[in-house]
């Protein structure tokens, strides 16, 4: 039985193995991903992002538990950074999700970002595809928590939840740095701390002032204490409202169209790059050209054109869709 078949039957082991394959040997996972693709598109993909330590994992845990009460099946992907020096990583998000470990309706996967800087791992996108095809209703994706460049999660999630906490001083700075535009829902966590109200008002003022916002969706601001579950009901309702908005306004289709366009581009680029380097490494010309560069017998621009030329010949044949 293929891994994809196992995933479709909801087998934990097959699901876990396929995600590992995607992380380690993405080329070898293509057959399974191909088989799973038609079964995707049903899950609500929710991104949870925000600076380190604001309570993303605790929120993820609380949301998952709340959704479970309604019988929803949950997938969780929690991404943490790898050390740029050793390549290793300490993946500690599960510390906040201990009770979910034995719930058969929940599948949690910790993931090292492995050098990617946008908040997710290279493998996250396809891992979501696996969980989606495996029948998860909601997939919660916790980002690295860079707090600034949140490009990846925007390209991945249907609903982006941006978390803030009172008393971090630089909160409003972070918001200015571009997080405002990506949020579909704001959550002010650790609302048991002083100044939660003030942060909420400041944030609301910024939202009101922002002339860039053109969407028909006003991101709500919820307040939570993730450790006690306070406010989680409202947060979940806000996330669900956004999902309904996406569905009924047609924005869901638009977002997915953009997502597929971006994915197609990156898959083409990867495939092309791989084939190209395989070819030239096999032909052994690569080192030769580098030597020529060193001796100034050629320049990088002319050399690149020559190397690409054999691939462009076939380009004149038209693509048949």
């Amino acid at each position: 039985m293929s891994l994809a078949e196992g995933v479709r039957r909801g087998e934990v082991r097959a699901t876990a193995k396929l995600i590992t394959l995607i992380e380690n040997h993405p080329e070898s996972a293509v057959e399974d991903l191909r088989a799973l693709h038609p079964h995707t598109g049903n899950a609500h993909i929710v991104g949870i992002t925000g600076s380190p330590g604001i309570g993303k994992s605790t929120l993820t845990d609380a949301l998952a538990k709340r959704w479970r009460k309604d019988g929803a099946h949950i997938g969780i992907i929690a991404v943490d950074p790898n050390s740029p020096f050793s390549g290793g990583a300490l993946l500690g998000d599960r510390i906040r999700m201990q009770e979910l470990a034995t719930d058969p309706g929940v599948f949690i996967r910790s993931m090292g970002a492995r050098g990617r800087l946008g908040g997710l791992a290279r493998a996250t996108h396809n891992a979501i595809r696996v969980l989606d095809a495996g029948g998860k209703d909601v997939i919660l994706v916790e980002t690295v928590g860079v707090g600034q460049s949140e490009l990846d999660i925007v390209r991945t999630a249907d609903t982006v939840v941006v978390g803030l906490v009172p008393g971090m001083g630089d909160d409003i700075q972070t918001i200015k740095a571009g997080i405002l535009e990506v949020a579909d829902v704001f959550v002010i966590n650790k609302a048991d701390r002083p100044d939660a109200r003030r942060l909420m008002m400041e944030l609301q003022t910024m939202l009101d002032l922002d002339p860039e916002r053109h969407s028909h969706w006003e991101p709500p601001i919820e307040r939570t204490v993730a450790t006690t579950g306070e406010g989680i009901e409202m947060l979940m309702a806000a996330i669900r409202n956004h999902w309904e908005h996406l569905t009924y306004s047609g924005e869901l289709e638009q977002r997915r169209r953009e997502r597929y366009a971006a994915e197609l581009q990156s898959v083409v680029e990867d495939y092309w790059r791989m084939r190209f380097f395989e070819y030239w490494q096999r032909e052994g010309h690569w080192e030769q050209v580098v030597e020529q560069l060193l001796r100034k017998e050629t320049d990088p621009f002319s050399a690149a054109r020559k190397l690409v030329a054999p691939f462009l010949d076939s380009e004149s044949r038209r693509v048949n869709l």
Partner: protein
Amino acid sequence: MGEQRIRVLIAKPGLDGHDRGAKVLARALRDAGMEVIYTGLRQTPEQIAATATQEDVHVVGLSCLSGAHLELFPRVVELLKEHGADDILVLGGGTIPAEDISVLKERGVAEVFTPGASTQEVVEFVKRSVNL
């Protein structure tokens, strides 16, 4: 284009609150280039086995300084088998009397490290056993 990483789960089964050794070890394995999942204190064997299966780790490292290792460690081995994940290597560490080590090994624990063991020793053992 992908890169392989050894994945390890470091877990503290039972009620034992001594987590220094587990944390030292988690960091050492990370510094050796591995992806280390740490789940915190007071895990049941059921939680540990389920986590190891979902995370598809190569190795589960159990740390116990409370004396309950004889019940807890073999239980994790059994549960992994039930999950169809008995290819996952189980290691143990902590204050474990010499006479218990052979018992644990008979019951499926691959190796046991006691106080004073160097983290380098553990790193090398893991690398040798997983052999990516």
